[in-house]
């Protein structure tokens, strides 16, 4: 007996779409490879120890990004220090304490809304409130507080997700032993969801490192070394990403821009790997 073949039209449909699928996937990958390759190609030769370890100087005509590295660290630590208790607390409220469905919905709606707001609007409101109304001027502390608002949903979401994976039986056991709710949360629930909290931190660090619009308006863009913590927090200070923007836009130093971009890429890579690794651990 004769086995028919598919019509030419169906064969074509199949081939064309299959081709498009492969092409798109290839394009996506090629895009990444070319982007990274280009950044490293132009940036890495300019990453020198001097760049990493000095303060920029007009008189000596040198450029260094040490202050920006310090500023970035200050922003990361400062933000996490505030946002972690807040975000984890909010997640714990949502998952462990909240009794009213309505309240949960309102808070979740709020966090979702915060997720969608573009960073330039955070920058604007941060500038209006922290820099002007509170009179702090451009300062790292204004940047930190703005970032706190921005990052909060990330922490809440990841923490909530991992709280959900803590088996109810742990909670029952703790309560059954006469433990109070807070003690149960502190000794059993939080330790069991620590992976998720850490993942949230890593994602947040990625966000902070990559942020520019919100920080430019609130933390400013200065690149000077300061002696003590209160000066560090109270002064204007640009993060690495802001410095990238300033050097390539304001100063026309494209090479420095690429050098910082290369550094940022390495950081992004590390952050992604760390988040993946933890994510895997979390699943277990």
């Amino acid at each position, binding site marked *: 007996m004769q086995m028919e073949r598919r019509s030419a039209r169906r064969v074509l449909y199949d081939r064309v779409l299959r081709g498009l699928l492969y092409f798109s996937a290839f394009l996506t990958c090629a895009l990444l490879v070319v982007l990274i390759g280009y950044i490293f190609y132009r940036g890495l030769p300019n990453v020198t120890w001097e760049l990493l370890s000095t303060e920029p100087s007009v008189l000596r005509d040198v450029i260094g990004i040490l202050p920006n590295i310090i500023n970035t660290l200050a922003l990361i630590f400062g933000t996490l220090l505030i946002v972690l208790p807040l975000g984890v607390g909010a997640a714990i409220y949502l998952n462990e304490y909240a009794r009213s469905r309505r309240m949960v919905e309102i808070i979740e709606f709020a966090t979702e809304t915060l997720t969608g707001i573009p960073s330039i609007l955070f920058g604007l409101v941060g500038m209006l409130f922290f820099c002007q109304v509170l009179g702090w001027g451009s300062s790292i502390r204004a940047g930190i507080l703005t970032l706190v608002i921005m990052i909060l949903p990330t922490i809440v979401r990841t923490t909530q997700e991992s709280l959900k994976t803590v088996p109810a*039986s742990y909670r029952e*056991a703790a309560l059954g*032993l*006469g433990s109070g709710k807070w003690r149960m949360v502190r000794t059993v629930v939080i330790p069991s969801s620590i992976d998720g909290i850490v993942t949230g931190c890593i994602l947040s660090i990625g966000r902070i490192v990559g942020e520019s619009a919100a920080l430019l308006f609130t933390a400013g863009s200065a690149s000077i070394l300061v002696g003590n913590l209160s000066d560090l927090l109270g002064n204007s200070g640009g993060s690495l990403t802001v410095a990238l923007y300033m050097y390539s836009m304001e100063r026309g130093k494209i090479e420095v821009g690429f050098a910082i971009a290369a550094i940022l890429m390495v950081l992004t890579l590390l952050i992604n790997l760390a988040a993946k690794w933890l994510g895997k651990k979390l699943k277990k």
Partner: protein
Amino acid sequence: MDARPIIAARDLNLWYGAAQALYSVDMDIPEKQVTALIGPSGCGKSTFLKTLDRMNDLVPGIKITGSVQYRGTEIYDSKVDVTWLRKQIGMVFQKPNPFPMSIYDNIAYGPRTHGVRSKSRLDDVVEKSLRGAAIWDEVKDRLKKSALSLSGGQQQRVCIARALAVEPDILLMDEATSALDPISTSKIEDLIADLKKDYTIVIVTHNMQQATRVSDKCAFFLLGRLIEFGDTTELFSVPRDKRTEDYITGRFG
């Protein structure tokens, strides 16, 4: 029946939202004996058990009327300290649920919760409880290992030890052996026989043989109602209620 029940439930009704799960239950649980709750799935055994140490408090939309007295004190009185009540009335669950900590920390969790800080006292409590749960010899060399590394039967005995460590008065066990293999099950049945010297024990079980083996009193539930309650031997040999007879002879459920 015995002189003075350690727990007395009177006209206990319970609703999950609109659905009633317990209907006017009256029961006197005698001290230092084993009381078994039996009945088909969904009849309200677990629900009743949980009302005894107010674990139901956590369920949203629950409503309870009637009275439950523990040693003469109304436990649903708003002045009652739930954590204290739960210290008095320990609970062991169907699935072994040790905390993801070391065996030692699992046992010490309760005492620490109730304020014991001294290392030497904790050591004593841990050893005593693990001995009490007949698992000391199996784990004494690896107290610092994670409790999750134990087998299911061992985990369940660790959970029992954890419950004993807070020196409860009553021990509630909700199908505590149904997730275990026969050997572990018989170990825990032996343990129950042993424990009733010092504790009042209430168990839920699906296993009629188990109920006859370990319990002194037996309560048969059906559709949220307590159908029959009495000495286990009597209930199984001369059930007063037709439905009890049908159930224990395997005619339904």
